[in-house]
């Protein structure tokens, strides 16, 4: 069970969180002209890297904030976490 540092609440067990997928995906702007290929990439295509991965987690049984986690997908090591409006270093 991972031990995740919520940027708002501090360290909590994985049980309190929900995984929220790739944290680098940026939703296209509203009303933006966009090709089928680009839209499909946004909706469906995700990388599954071996190693460092920036992802979103949701403190669903806590403060209910979404935040970013940089995690190693092989070792599960968590390097850092941040609020969504902060850049991971």
């Amino acid at each position, binding site marked *: 069970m991972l031990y995740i540092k919520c940027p708002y609440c501090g360290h909590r*067990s994985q049980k309190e969180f929900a995984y929220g997928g790739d944290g680098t995906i940026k939703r296209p702007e*509203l009303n933006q002209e966009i090709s089928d290929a680009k*839209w499909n990439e946004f909706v*469906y295509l995700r990388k599954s890297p071996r190693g460092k991965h920036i992802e979103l987690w949701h403190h669903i049984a806590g403060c209910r904030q979404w935040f970013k986690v940089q995690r190693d997908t092989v070792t599960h090591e968590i390097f850092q976490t941040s609020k*969504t*409006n902060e850049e991971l270093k």
Partner: protein
Amino acid sequence: MTQSYRLNNEGLINRNKEISFKFNGKKYIGYEGDTLASALLANGVHLVGRSFKYHRPRGFFGAGVDEPNAKLQILLNGHSEPNVNATEIELVEGIEATSQNCWPSVEFDIGAINNFLNRFFPAGFYYKTFMWPKSFWYKIYEPFIRKAAGLGVASIEKDKERYEHKYEYCDLLVTGSGPAGLSSAYAAAKNGAKVILAEDKPRFGGSLLTDDVTIDNLSGKAWSDKVITELKEMPNVIVKNRSQVFGYYDHNMMVMFEKTGDHLKDKPRYTPRQRLWYIRAKEVLLSTGSIERPIVFGNNDTPGIFLSAAAKEYIKVYGVLVGKKPLIFTNNDSAYETALEFKKQGIESIILDTREEHSSELIDSAKNQNIQIKFSHAVIAANGYKKVKSAQIGKLNKDKTKFENLEIIECDCICVSGFWTPTVHLASQSGNKLKFNNQIDAFVPDKSKQKETSIGASKGTFTLKETLAEGFKTGFDLSRNITNNNNSTSIPNSNETKKSLHDKFWCSPLPKGKNYKRFVDFQNDVAVSDIEVALREGYRSIEHVKRYTTLGMATDQGRTSNLNGLQLVADVEKKIVPQVGHTTFRPPFTPITIGTIVGREVDMEYMPTRKTPMHTWHEKNNAIFVDAGAWKRPRYYKQGDENLFEAAKREAKNVRDHVGICDVTTLGKIDIKGPDAAEFLNRVYTNAWLKLPVGKARYGVMLREDGIVMDDGTTTRISENHYHMTTTTAQAANVLSHLEYYLQVVWPELKVNVISTTEQWAGAALAGPKSRDVLAKLFPNLDVSNEALPFMGYSEGNLFGVSARIFRISFSGELAYEINVESDYGLFMWEKMMEIGKEFNIQPYGTEALSTLRIEMGHVAGPELDGRTIPYDVSLEGLVSKKKDFIGKRSLQKEAFNKADRQKIVGLIPTDKKSSIPEGSHLVVDKNARLPNPKLGHVSSSCWSVENNNPFSLAIVKDGKNMIGKKLFAVSPLKNTAIEVEIISSHYVDHEGKRVRS
């Protein structure tokens, strides 16, 4: 005399307290502090079970977690438990144990015929034999194998015991209380660290209880007692015995199994039987010690053959002799200690040492005591069926491949030592890749992947002096990094006997013409010949050899067999062990009960139960409940001996004819506030929201980004910047997360806050032509006319002193209102509505009637919004704005979503107007077509239309738009039905929507 193998003075048991117990129906006496194994051995009982495959007689082999044979069925306090290790279970008054895997008895077991047919049971026997014909597997082979290969019998009784879970945090978790664990825990605790020290046995001290050593001029046991006493008094230390750390998980999450009540005859009322600890440790110190491994020889599974350290432990801890004429067979010095302990008790033993004659402190001491030693000798095979009677021994030639001078020695037990294997399971579980240490011929931990450090015997440090030095230093260093304190503790002096090098001898060769079974893995009955067969048949990877032969796959996880198996593979393959590699260690290290894993999460506590404020009323009025997620909802209110179908029909009809009320508290409710709330809703929903006036509700549909409908519901503008959103019961949590995601991650610039208010409001739907009459009496001061409170209108009112929200919305398709009050007033509201509605024939209706009403109206719900439908499919395309953008809009342009023959919702009635159509039925043209029968659609919801008095269903069917009037078959192979249906509009009742506006 009973207990004829019990010594008079030795041991740590309480001789003042006799305990009686039963084994295979016979009564025996032991002492408090015994294990079941030591008590049986004290009574001279060796035969305890039959082996897994060949049903060979088996006895005790170890004295703790290493035991591969003595798995018993235990009956205590009316609770039966299979596969319990007799060497680990403490003796409790009244315990009844029985042997497993034998019939009719352990003494005479018919299955033992397998032993004489063993050449028909080679490695991979099951794979080879039971493959063909395929159809035989389920009916003949599998039941037969299950019967023949069973271990114990799982109880079918409900487990009445109490199990608990506990969460704990610490700086240092120390696993094992031998010299390494004690010294490191002590040094760390003295330096201010929060320490948990866990010991799996009842007694602390590990090897200090049995080894002839001194620390600080105290015996090992006395020193251990002193340290434990001091640790127990320290506020920063938790000391736990009977506690096995069995799993090492991510981020130093350690899981520990504590036997809190198994050793107590009458445990206090609230003491659980067992407790599972989740421990998050900053650092883990693995002081798990080592386990002696055997040397493989012929018939080495005969009862009366023990690990030499186990024999020593039975003497030193339990005061029990495993035999009175011992033969000691070793490739190293430590078995000499066993011989010396026998000697202290006046028992003469003979030592067979595979090494050439040489000298060491221990060997000299044995010689001085006139113990007979035969160097360059090995046991070839044990003789005796149910108990060792003698041993066939021989002198080894120079390269130890052949014997000369064979002779037979009489003995009643053989104590074997093939040197020591560090217990690296937890280190391996942590992700530590092990490395092979040539000095000790075993795997030891390599570089740490997590915050763990192995010390003492578990990393191959076998001398006490070095172990203490490592323990004190590591405990201090790790604690200093955490606490920043600098209080070091001095390392005590210690004395031990020095040992000479062990011999790399693992398996006695077979003399010419002899074909003894030589077992590597006792619990799974894997012999040397099985491994040879696997290798001969081309299995090379150790993982494949393991699975083909089942070597090391039993509940003992190959604790005594892994390394010998690897040595054997290496020998045959002419490789060295590190090239062969090792198999994977997985949690749990020892078997744990299912009860402990489950903890308190049983019955009612299995998951939370959500009840609405009106639940007690529903109960009193014969509601039959249905689970809706964690919620309990009335499905119908039973009158007389009505069944579900009759009750739902009555309740639904009453809504159509008069008025009904339904508990809708479970609908998700989300409070939305902020200056950008309208803009936010406009992006979330497919339809337009910017111009919704205050005091009005609107129905909305929200999509996922892939264009699929996520949820629907009404949202009401309470005031300028305040909205009340409702969701379906099932999607309430997902919708909230969805909204939070867009507000926090995608559009953080929007000034909007959302919060769930599902449990803050109790809700009741009031539906039917008479609902306005009831409403008028509920709120006498409110104008409830169609003009003042029109369809999709909203008002606030005073319900006999309770403020209420009144929404004129309808799921049933009738004139209807939903009234919300604060939860605490929910029951009050409900009772008032029932009271006032009485003159209008009000009746409560459950979810089944609710479904009937919405289905015949063609209103979609969960079965239609199934994660595969877009707005068009469920005829909600009219709500999709062409002007503005919203979540998922771009996906609706997808080619597949715009095909001319795209699926669409339709209504179905059976052409016979009688047959109910099972939900899930497939719609096909030809009911008799060959499989796979081309499917045009499926039936999503079915009901009995109370309006038209015949069955009606909703279905989603290909090209639904052009299918109206056509006939198809609804086939359900599951229910074995094929019903001819006519396709009609999905709006079966009031398709102009007049009633809701009436």
